[in-house]
């Protein structure tokens, strides 16, 4: 475990062609890390995430990805993820292959990954057309009842990136509130990067809280606000207005590209990104 900068962590641990999961279910979405991947112009990534959300809309629109594994890809509460759609429908800025699952299937795949089982299982997918378009959805026969139980291959990303509330100076990470599949995605990965709101002397974790011990974490970077426009419970709320604004920004290729150029490529880091938004009167 190293406490480092986000730039250094992405530079060292996210490579072109990697399989990368940025998790966080509505809460604690690692936006700063996703933008740093855009800024460092990574290419050919296989992106994994239950809910692509704006973060993968940005990364896919910016050309980082060639494959997406997901289970629900919209702008939550608003509508389409326009850049994800454009990539799937019209191959812009490049073709995007997809592995499509249900939430329960993705969750089982992460659990299998964290458990180093080759597959996860669920009573799922029955009567849907998903197995017809995703040949990795298969089944096993129960050795006791003869039932067919659906299976999904384990997800073991090269890198998982999470955002959390706190780390201590040893690099132990505390996650509190809505947890999504963050712990499973983190433990399933070969490398685990975590951005946090703050680094503290003592986590003050309640008994049975979700703590990722430092020795399972590859690198920690302190990036206050790094989940914006999603939220970090105890620090700031979800910026629903930005999610609505994004619908306009992302609808059009040129507007989107200008936004990425100005605010991501045109800034050095997440603090610069927020400062640029504020300078233009659109910052949080």
């Amino acid at each position, binding site marked *: 475990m190293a406490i480092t900068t986000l730039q250094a962590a992405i530079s060292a641990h996210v490579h072109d062609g990697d399989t990368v999961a940025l998790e966080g*279910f*509505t*809460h604690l979405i690692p936006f700063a890390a996703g933008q740093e991947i855009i800024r460092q112009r990574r290419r050919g990534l296989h992106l994994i995430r*239950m*809910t692509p959300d704006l973060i993968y809309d940005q990364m896919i629109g910016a050309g980082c990805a060639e494959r997406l594994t*997901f*289970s*629900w*890809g*919209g702008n*939550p*509460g608003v509508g*389409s*993820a326009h850049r*994800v*759609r454009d990539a*799937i*429908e019209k191959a812009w800025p490049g073709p995007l292959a997809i592995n*499509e699952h*249900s*939430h*329960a299937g993705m*969750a*089982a795949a*992460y659990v299998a990954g964290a458990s180093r089982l080759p597959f996860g299982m*669920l*009573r*799922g997918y*029955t*009567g*849907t*057309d*998903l197995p017809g*378009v995703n040949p990795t959805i298969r089944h096993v026969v129960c050795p006791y009842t003869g039932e067919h139980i659906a299976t999904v291959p384990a997800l073991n990303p090269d890198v998982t990136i999470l955002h959390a509330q706190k780390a201590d100076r040893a690099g132990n990470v505390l996650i509190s*509130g*809505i*947890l*999504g*599949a963050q*712990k*499973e995605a983190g433990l399933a990965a070969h490398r685990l990067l975590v951005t946090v709101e703050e680094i503290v002397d003592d986590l003050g974790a309640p008994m049975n809280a*979700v703590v990722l011990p430092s020795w399972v974490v590859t690198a920690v970077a302190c990036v*206050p*606000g790094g989940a*914006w*426009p999603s*939220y970090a*419970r105890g*620090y*700031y*709320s*979800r*910026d*629903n*207005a*930005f*999610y609505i604004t994004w619908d306009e920004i992302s609808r059009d290729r040129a507007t989107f590209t200008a936004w990425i150029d100005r605010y991501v490529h045109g800034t050095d880091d997440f*603090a610069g990104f*927020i400062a640029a938004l504020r300078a233009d009167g659109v910052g*949080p």
Partner: protein
Amino acid sequence: MSAVPRPQWTPDEMMTVTAARMLWDRCVCFVGIGLPSAAANLARLLHAPDIVLIYESGTIGTRPRVLPLSIGDGELADTATTVVPLPEIFSYWLQSGRVDVGFLGAAQVDRFGNLNSTVIGPYDRPKTRLPGAGGAPEIAIHARQVFVVLKQSARSFVSEVAFKSSAGFLTGYGARKASGVPGGGPQAIITDYGVMKPQAGSEEFELVARYEHVTVADAIAATGWPLQVAATVDVLQPPTQDELAVLRDLHRRTREANSRPVKLPV
């Protein structure tokens, strides 16, 4: 629509109130964002104070003071009995058969209650790529019953969905039961015209109730298959003053809470 004067409430309001009335106290409800969430919370504030609301983000027994705008708003965690990891929601709480009612929306529903929220056009060359199935495939399988909420039109109510994102009665006539899934499937579709329920035997959805200002002919015209009509079509009671007042107050509080701009503390 017909010549009956337009009522003093919106289609969303009457659908929300209609859905809320179908929920009962202490029922365990797997809630989606939007109208289902409004309906479930309206029921909680009216006749079902101990309804158990589960959101797929991992919040169990939530009692949000304002409606969540996303499936994982902090308000849901802060007011929950317990907040568990997302994989556990699907395994220990949904798959385990603990959910009485699952609420689903979609882009399209067909005559047998199968839902499409995945794609219009061929999967590999989509005309319109939709967000995808999310939690729906397993909600549709495991909830004891499913309520579908969807505004009606001939484009969204189709004879056969282009892509089955989640299973209704499949091809009808017992096909669902033969597939071995445990849950009872869609037992009601709540639209802005009325309510459809599956016919015994065929399991094809038929109109069983309509709103006061809607005619049966209206409902048939807004359906993309030759809609069957039950022998008796009930007229749904319009929203009461109390129902509307509580619902509008909930929406007002929600708008207020969400109008505060977010300021990052950095």
